C-alpha cells in the first residue's frame, strides 16, 4: 500500500506518517505540501489511499478531495481538521471522504483503515 499525506505543515505530515508506521510498518508514503503537489503525486505514483488536511492555502482539503474523487473514484480518502465543524463533516461525506479530527489518533486511523479497506474490497473484489 502506498499512502499519500497532504498537509502544508511538515510536522503534521510527520505525525500522520508516524501513526501509519506504527500500524503498518511495510506501507510506503508519499508527501505533498499543497494541492498541486498532491495532484501531481496522484498522477505520477501508485497511490492507494489519501489523508489530507482541510486547512490549506489555496484549495482547501475538501475541494482537493472532490478532485481526487474524479481521478480515482474508489480510492479511500480521509480529510483531517482540527476544528469539528458540522459543515466540514457533511461536505466530507458528500465527496465520499472520511472526516478525522486533528490531531489524528491511532484509534481513529485504525477505524478509518478498517472501513476504507472494507470499501475497497467491496469495489474491487
Amino acid at each position: 500500500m502506498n499512502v499519500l499525506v497532504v498537509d502544508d505543515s511538515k510536522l503534521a505530515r510527520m505525525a500522520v506518517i508516524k501513526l501509519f508506521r506504527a500500524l503498518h510498518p511495510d506501507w510506503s508514503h508519499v508527501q505533498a505540501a499543497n494541492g498541486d503537489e498532491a495532484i501531481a503525486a496522484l498522477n505520477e505514483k501508485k497511490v492507494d489511499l489519501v489523508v489530507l488536511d482541510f486547512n490549506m492555502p489555496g484549495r482547501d482539503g475538501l475541494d482537493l478531495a472532490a478532485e481526487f474523487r474524479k481521478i480515482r473514484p474508489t480510492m479511500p480518502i480521509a480529510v483531517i481538521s482540527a476544528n469539528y465543524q458540522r459543515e466540514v463533516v457533511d461536505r466530507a461525506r458528500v465527496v465520499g471522504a472520511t472526516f478525522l479530527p486533528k490531531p489524528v489518533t491511532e484509534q481513529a486511523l485504525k477505524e478509518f483503515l478498517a472501513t476504507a479497506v472494507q470499501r475497497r474490497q467491496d469495489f474491487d473484489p
Partner: protein
Amino acid sequence: MNEFLEYFLVEARELVERATSDLLMLERAPSDRERLDGVFRAFHTLKGGASIVDFGPMSRAMHAAEEVLSATRASDQLVTPTLISDCLTCLDQVDQWLDAVQDSGDLPGDAEAAADRVIVRFTADPKSADDTQGKPIATASAVRAILPAAIAVLQEQLSLLVTGGDGAEGRMASAGRLAANVLRHIARLDDAKQIERAFLQSRTSGDFTLLSAAIERVVEKMRAPVPVEAVAANAPRAASTSRTLRVDTERVNELVNVTGELIVAKNAVGHIAKLAMEANNTLAAVIKDEHARFDHLIETLQRVVRGLRVLPMHVVFQRFSRQVREMSESHGKPVRLVTEGDKTEADKAIVEMLFEPLLHVVRNAIDHGVEPAEQRAAAGKPSLATLYLKAWREGERVVVEVEDDGGGIDVAKIRQAVAERCLVSREVLSAMSNAEVLDLIFLPGFSTALEITELSGRGVGMDAVRTAIERLRGRVLVETRLGKGTTVRFVLPFSVMMTPVITVEAGGQMFGIPLDAVIETVRIPREQIYSVGGAHAFVLHNQTIPLIELGRTFGWGADHASFDATVVVASSGGQLGGLQVDRLGAHMEVMLKPTEGLLSGMPGIAGTTLLGDGSVLLVLNLEDVLQ
C-alpha cells in the same frame, strides 16, 4: 525529548514570523481578506502543531485566538486594531514559549497561567472591552464615590456563589462576568483580569471557590485606602501591555559570538563525518545526519539572532526635527516636519547607516524643492511647507520615504542641462522617457552640471545617496510632479547579509576568515611540521594538511619559525588547508563590501569591512587562498 520537537520549532518560528508580517500588513489595510486568511491559517497550524507535540497550554491559547479570527473572517467586519494587537501579544507569548522549548525541550512551568492571560484577551466580553478602549474611564473622584456600591455588588456575587445546587454553573458565569465588568467600570483593569482568569479556572475545574476567593481578595484590596494617583495611573498601563524586552547590546553581541563558535563546532562535525565516511566507519551515516540537524538548527539560530538586532526608525527620524528646523530658519523657508511609521523596525546596521543619505535628500528638498514663501503664495499653496519622513515594512523590505510639497523637478530643464553638459549624447537623450531622464540625477557629475548652469533643480550629491543605499543592497526611486512636489523612496532589505568571521593577525595585518569554512583552530608543535618539496605540511587526525603561512602569502613579512604554530584549519572548494597565523582574534559578524581601488581584483581577498576602531579588515576568499 519529543522526536517532532525540532520540526515543531522550525515550523512554529516560520509561522510566527509569517503571521506577524501579515498582522502588520493588516494594520495598514484592515480590509485585506487574504492577509486575514493567512493569519488565521498560521494560528490554526500553530494550534495543530502544539497539539501534535502535546503542548496543551499553547494549543488552548492558539485556539482562543483562532476562534476570534475565524469569526472575523466569517463576518464582513474590518479587523480591529485591538484584535491585531491581541494577536501580536499572543505571538509574542508563543515566541517566548518557543525559546523555552528550544532551551529545555518543554514549555515553562507557568505556561498554563500565561495561556490563561492570552485566552482572556480573546474571550473577554467584547462590549466591556470596548468600554475600556473607547470611553474615558470614570474619573478618580467618581470612582471614590461609587466604590462602596461596587464593593456591595461584589459581595452580592460572593453570596450567590456559596449556594450550590441547580444552576450553580450559570450563576457562577454571571457572577464572574458581572464582577469583572464592575471592576472594569471603576478602572481596576488588573483586578478585572484576575477575576476573569479565576473565572476560567473555575469553569474548567468546576471548583467555584477559585472564583469566590479571587473576588474576596479584590474586595479586601478595595477596602484598603487607595491613593488617587494610583487609580489614574493604572488605566493606561493596563491598556498598553508591553510587547518588548530591553536587552543590552553587549548581550546580543555575546550571542552573536557564541553563534560564531557554534558554526565552527558544526563545521568540525562535518569534517569528522567526512573522515568517518572515508574510513568506512559504521558511525559515518549517524554523524552525517547529526551534522545536518546541527546545520539546520544553527541556521535557525542565526536568523533568530539577526531578528534581535533591530532598531526602530525613530532612532534616525528624531534627529531630523532639529535639522529641519535649522535648515528652515537659515533658508527663510517655513517648513514643518511630519514623521510617520517611526516604530517601523529594521536591522540595526541599516537604521544606523540611513542618516547620511536621508540628510542629503532632506537638504535637497529644503534647498531646491521647497519654493520661497512668496512663490508658494502665488501658486496658491500654504506658505508653510510640509516635509514627510515615512517608513513602513513591506514583507522582507523596509521602505523609507522623503516627500515634500515643493515645486517638483522640471524634467525639461534636466534634459537641457544634460544636453548642454554632454553627459549623454543627444540621440540617446531624445529617445529617453521622462522617468529615464529623471533617473539621470543619480549620474556622478550631474550635480556639478546643475550648479554650473545655476539651474534651481535637484540632484546635489544624489549619486552619493544612490551609492550609499545600494551598498545596503537597497534601491532609490524618485517620483515628481511639477508644481506639486517630489518623493524620494529608499527600498531597503529588512536585514543585511552578515558574514560571521574569526579575525586573525598574520605578518602584522588583520585578516577575517569566514567561519563557514573554519573547521578548527589548533597549535602545532614546530617539530611536527615537515617539508614537502618547497612547502610545509602537518598531520592532524591522521590527515596530511598543507600549511599556508598567511603573512607570507600576502607578502607582509615572515612568520616566526621558532615557536609552535597557531593554525586555523579550514576547508573550501574541496580543499583542506591550515592557515598559520600569529594570533587568533575575536569572532564577529561583518558586512562585506566588495574591494575597491588598490585592493580590487586582489586574489585571495573576498572583501573588506570597517572595524569599530576605523581600521580595515581584509576578509579572505579561502577558495583562492587554499588553491
